C-alpha cells in the first residue's frame, strides 16, 4: 500500500514548534533590501542623535538633568537599536492577525495541532532574537566607534540583560494585544498607529523620559511602554543604579504577567470571534 493510502498513526512526538523562531529571520532574509533599509534607518537616526546631543551639550554645559553627553548619546544609540529594529520588524513576516484576517487565512491558525497563542509566541520569540542581533551588532559597532559607553559595572550589565529580556516580553505582549484587536475591528491600522505613537513617546525611544516634566515622567514611567526601552537603557547607562533596580524589574515582571493574562483572555475571545470572518 502506498504511504498516501495509509492514514498516519497519531504522532508520538510533540510538535517541534521551537523551530518557528527562525520564521522571522528567514522572512527577513527573503527581502534582503529590507535589511539594508533597517541598517540605513538606524545609522541615520544615530547620526542625527549624535549631532543633536553634541549641539545641546555645547550650549548647556557638562550635564543636562544629571546626565552627561556620553550617557545621553549612549542612551539614544541603545534606544534607537531597541526600538527601530522592532518597529521595522512588526508585520514584516506578514504573520500578523491583521494580515491573516484580511485574507481569511487566519482559519489555519485554528486547525493545527499548535494553539494560535503558542504559534505567535514562538514567532515573537524569533522576532525578539532577531531584534537582539541588531542590538548586539549595533552595540559592538557603537563601542568600537566610542559612541557608546560601556555599562558602569558588570552587575549593571547583568541587570540590564534581565531588564532587556523582560522588556522584550512586554514589547511582544503590547504588539500582540494591538494585533488581536483585528478580530474585532477587522483592521487594526488605527489602533496600530495609536500604539506606535504611544510606544515611541512613552517608552523613551524618541526622547529620554527624564527630559519631560515630572508629572509626565512619573506617569509614563509606570506604564508598560517604559518597561520596553526606558528601564533597560537607564540601567545600562547607570541612570538607574543597580542597588535601586529591584522595583523596576518587579514592575517589568508585573507588566509581563498582566499583559500575558490579558492576551490569554483576548485569544480566547478572538477564537470565538472567528465565526464572523469569511464565508
Amino acid at each position, binding site marked *: *500500500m502506498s504511504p498516501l493510502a495509509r492514514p498516519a498513526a497519531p*504522532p508520538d512526538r*510533540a510538535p517541534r514548534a521551537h*523551530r518557528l523562531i527562525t520564521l522571522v529571520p528567514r522572512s527577513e532574509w527573503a527581502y534582503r533590501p529590507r535589511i539594508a533599509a533597517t541598517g540605513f534607518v538606524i545609522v541615520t537616526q544615530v547620526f542625527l542623535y549624535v549631532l543633536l546631543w553634541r549641539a545641546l551639550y555645547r550650549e548647556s554645559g557638562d550635564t543636562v538633568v544629571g546626565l552627561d553627553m556620553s550617557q545621553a548619546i549612549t542612551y539614544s544609540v541603545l534606544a534607537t537599536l531597541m526600538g527601530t529594529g522592532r518597529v521595522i520588524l512588526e508585520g514584516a513576516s506578514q504573520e500578523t492577525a491583521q494580515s491573516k484576517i484580511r485574507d481569511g487565512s487566519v482559519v489555519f491558525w485554528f486547525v493545527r495541532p499548535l494553539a494560535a497563542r503558542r504559534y505567535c509566541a514562538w514567532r515573537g520569540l524569533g522576532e525578539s532574537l532577531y531584534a537582539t542581533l541588531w542590538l548586539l551588532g549595533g552595540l559592538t559597532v557603537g563601542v568600537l566607534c566610542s559612541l557608546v559607553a560601556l555599562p558602569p559595572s558588570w552587575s549593571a550589565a547583568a541587570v540590564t540583560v534581565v531588564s532587556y529580556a523582560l522588556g522584550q516580553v512586554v514589547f511582544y505582549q503590547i504588539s500582540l494585544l494591538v494585533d488581536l484587536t483585528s478580530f474585532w475591528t477587522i483592521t487594526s491600522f488605527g489602533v496600530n498607529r495609536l500604539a506606535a505613537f504611544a510606544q515611541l513617546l512613552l517608552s523613551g525611544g524618541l526622547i529620554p523620559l527624564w527630559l519631560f516634566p515630572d508629572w509626565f515622567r512619573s506617569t509614563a514611567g509606570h506604564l508598560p511602554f517604559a518597561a520596553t526601552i526606558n528601564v533597560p537603557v537607564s540601567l545600562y547607562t547607570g541612570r538607574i543604579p543597580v542597588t535601586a533596580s529591584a522595583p523596576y524589574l518587579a514592575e517589568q515582571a508585573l507588566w509581563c504577567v498582566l499583559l500575558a493574562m490579558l492576551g490569554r483572555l483576548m485569544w480566547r475571545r478572538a477564537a470565538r470571534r472567528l465565526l464572523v470572518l469569511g464565508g
Partner: protein
Amino acid sequence: MSGTDHGITVTGVTKTFRTWDTADAWSIRRPLRRRRARRAVALADVDLRIERGEFIGLLGQNGAGKSTLIKIMTGLLLPEEGSVRVCGLDPYADRERNAHNMGVTFGQRTQMWWDLPARDSFGILRDIYGLPPTVWRDTLTQLDDVLALSAFWDTPVRFLSLGQRVRCDLAAALLHRPPVLFLDEPTIGLDVLVKDQVRELLTRYATTGDHAIVLTTHDMAEVEALCRRIVVIDRGRIVHDGPREALADVTDAEHTYLVEFETPPPALHLLTADVVSGEGPTVRVRPRPGADRAQVTAELLAAHAVRSVVYEGTRAEDILRTLYGRTARQSPAAAGGGGG
C-alpha cells in the same frame, strides 16, 4: 474501533448568527434609535454521518450553510445545539488533538508562508505536526509524484501561480496523512490541467477506502467525477442525502428529453413519454411516471429515425438547479439564512 471512530458524526446541529437590521441603521434624524438584532439560521437540526472510505459532495447554493457546517466539523465554530465527532473527538473542545486527524483546504486561502519557498512551508508544517522526518519525506515524495511540486517548491510562495499555490496547499493539507479531509472548493479558479491533477490525487485517496472526505464545490463536473454520495444543503437543512444516482429521483417529474429526428415526425404518440413541445425535427418529451431513460429511448429508436437524444435535467447541475428552484418556491420566507 467502530466505523464512526474514523469518520464524522453530526447530530442535531443547529447554528444561528446574529445579524443587524440595516433598515434600522443609525441616522441623524433618529440618533438614539437602536438597531434591532435578528438571529439568522445557518444550520437547523442537521444530522450527517460520514464513514471512513466515503467521499461525499456537500452541495448547496451560496449562503446555504455548507461553509458553516464545514467550520463546525473542523472545530472552528461551536454549534448552539447538537454535537459533532470527528474520529471520536469533539473538534471544538479537542481542537489540537483533532487537528492531527484532519486536513483542510479553504478555497484560495493559503496556509503557506508567503515569503518562504514552498518546501520550507512543508518543513514548518512537519515541525508543527511533529512528523518524523522519514514519514514527512515519503509523503512529500508521493504527493510530488501526483502534483509535480518539485518543479517549483524551491520558489518563494509569493512568486507561485494560483495553480501552483493551490497544489502546494493541497499537499500541505495532506502532509500529515489525515484520515479525514475537508476540501472547501479546492479547485476554484484553476485551469483544466491543474484540476485534473487535483482530481487524480483525490481519486487516489478515495480508492484507498481509508479516508472520510468531504468536498464542497460548485463545480458539478468535479462532483460527478469524484463523489459517490451527495448531500445537498439548503437554508441550513439537508434536503438530499444519498448516492449520486439517487439524486435524479428527487426531481424525476421535471426531466425532459430533447429528441432530434432525421425528419420532422408526424404526430408523436409514445407509451413511455408525453410530448411537451415540438418544433420541426426537434421534440421535447417528458417520461411518464415509472418510465426510465432506457425505456423511453428504446421506444423512440424502435419506431423512428432519431439523430440524437439529450437527457435534460439528469446531469447533477440540472438536478441541483431544479432542486434549488423548488426549495426557493416552497419556502420563500426562509430565504436569507446566514452562514455560507
